[in-house]
């Protein structure tokens, strides 16, 4: 027993972990072999499913951009002394954190068109093109719902990030005669970003996976994101195992990829906070433009 422990201690940790992973894949391979896993079907259909990546990413990127804008506005409102801004932001955060994302998607996709109809009935003079903007494409409705929902959660992230900047920084900016927006843009927010970016990256990765919910809004087959596509082909050929494994691997791959980029971004942002010179970080931020 002791000899085994000693022998084990000589094997590098990473190698042991690699062996465990190989073991897991072996078990899964056996399971798939029993389930008559059809690799050829995946080869034939992966291209179609992966063709939805563009839509998945569009929804995720659009959603996170909307969320960042809303979170920034929400956070500034939450720390402002303006009662209207504070109140509106409080309602926004409370409602969108307090209700399920899928309900919000249906509210925006299916409930707003009803508002349009009733609006036009009640006020016949209401410009129709304006009212029509309440009828949204499923992908757009999904993107907006994701942005609103994540923006509510990220409001707290942004608020904490802004409040983490030392009070003396804002005072120094004010003492230089900077206006509120200049102080925020040049001094406070760049420092808050160090605190904000890591959790925002996590939110983006989480949102990428939540784009699958948009499939419930029934997108047309041509512009469907990857989960919808896997559902369509999996059901048609009765290859659900293959289809969902394929789409799961795609999500997993995206997550790994963006986690990698996120780590790199965090390293870059630490310039100005570490004493050792960082050769590849040049002084990229101009002294104000």
């Amino acid at each position, binding site marked *: 027993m002791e000899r085994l422990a000693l022998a084990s201690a000589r094997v590098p940790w990473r190698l042991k972990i690699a062996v465990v992973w190989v073991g897991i894949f072996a078990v899964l391979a056996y399971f798939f072999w029993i389930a008559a896993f059809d690799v050829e079907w995946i080869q034939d259909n992966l291209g179609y499913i992966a063709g939805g990546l563009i839509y998945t990413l569009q929804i995720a990127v659009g959603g996170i951009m909307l969320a960042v804008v809303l979170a920034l506005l929400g956070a500034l409102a939450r720390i402002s002394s303006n009662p209207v801004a504070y109140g509106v932001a409080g309602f926004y955060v409370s409602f969108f954190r307090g209700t399920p994302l899928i309900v919000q998607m249906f509210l925006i996709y299916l409930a707003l068109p009803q508002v349009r109809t009733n609006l036009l009935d009640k006020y016949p003079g209401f410009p129709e093109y304006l009212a029509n903007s309440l009828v949204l494409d499923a992908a757009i409705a999904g993107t907006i719902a994701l942005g609103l929902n994540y923006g509510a959660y990220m409001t707290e992230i942004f608020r904490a990030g802004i409040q983490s900047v030392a009070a003396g*920084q804002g005072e*120094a900016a004010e003492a*230089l005669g900077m206006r509120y927006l200049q102080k925020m843009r040049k001094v406070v927010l760049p420092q808050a970003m160090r605190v904000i970016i890591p959790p925002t990256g996590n939110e983006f990765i989480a949102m990428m996976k939540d784009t699958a919910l948009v499939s419930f809004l029934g997108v047309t087959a041509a512009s469907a994101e990857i989960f919808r596509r896997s559902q369509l082909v999996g059901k048609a050929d009765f290859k659900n195992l293959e289809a969902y494994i394929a789409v799961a691997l795609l999500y997993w791959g995206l997550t790994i990829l963006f986690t990698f980029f996120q780590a790199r971004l965090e390293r870059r942002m630490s310039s*100005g906070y570490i004493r050792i010179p960082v050769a590849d970080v040049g002084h990229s931020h101009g002294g104000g*433009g």
Partner: protein
Amino acid sequence: MSGDEVIVRVEGLHKRFGRLSVLSGVDLDLHKGEVVVIFGRSGSGKSTLLRCINFLEDPTEGTVEVAGVQLGGGHRTRRKREQIRRIRLHVGMVFQQFNLFPQMTAVENVMCGPMCLKDADQKSVRKRALDLMERVGLGDKADEHPIRLSGGQQQRVAIARALAMQPEVMLFDEPTSALDPELTGEVLAVMKSLATDLHMPMMVVTHEMGFAREVADRMAFFHEGVILEEGPPAQIFGNTQRAETRTFLDAVL
């Protein structure tokens, strides 16, 4: 342009934080080219006075007048905020903790204020900033980030940053208190050169009595929110009027 032209006038200034009264009626003028050293025990209201002058704190009562703009405390309307900003543009402030912006290099810190002004020209602002870095003896450190500078160097950059706005008066809030003893000299030397070479009006909150004796035109002793004794250094040191001042001086000298 007489020598007794008033740059800063503080009248009847009170500051209360809740039930705690920090300033209880302060009157103080700063004249053109004059250096006033404010001293006294911690908690006596020295820093609060400086922070009220550029409205980092809102005066509870009384007024502050800088470069012809007279303001009191109270609700900050849009117009009031603009007046406060106008005062701040005339007042340079140096903090105990330097408060340099860590994401910018030293010269970017110095450029930062002027670049926020309308019609700022990056090239000329940068040239002036480099001149100021030279003036505080840090011409070779312009492109370093603050974290790679010593405390004394950071404080000199902070002085250059305040000077970049071409202020009419400089406020120093315990500029050497956060520094290791061997680094205070370089900061005090820069401050002294501002007084003697540029005749910059300055209000300096400090415990550096050597600096006060050498550079100050006038000294004001703060005690429990009021100025208890005021006069030129020779009088303060040589002919102290109040027992409290004597006690304080005996403790720090």
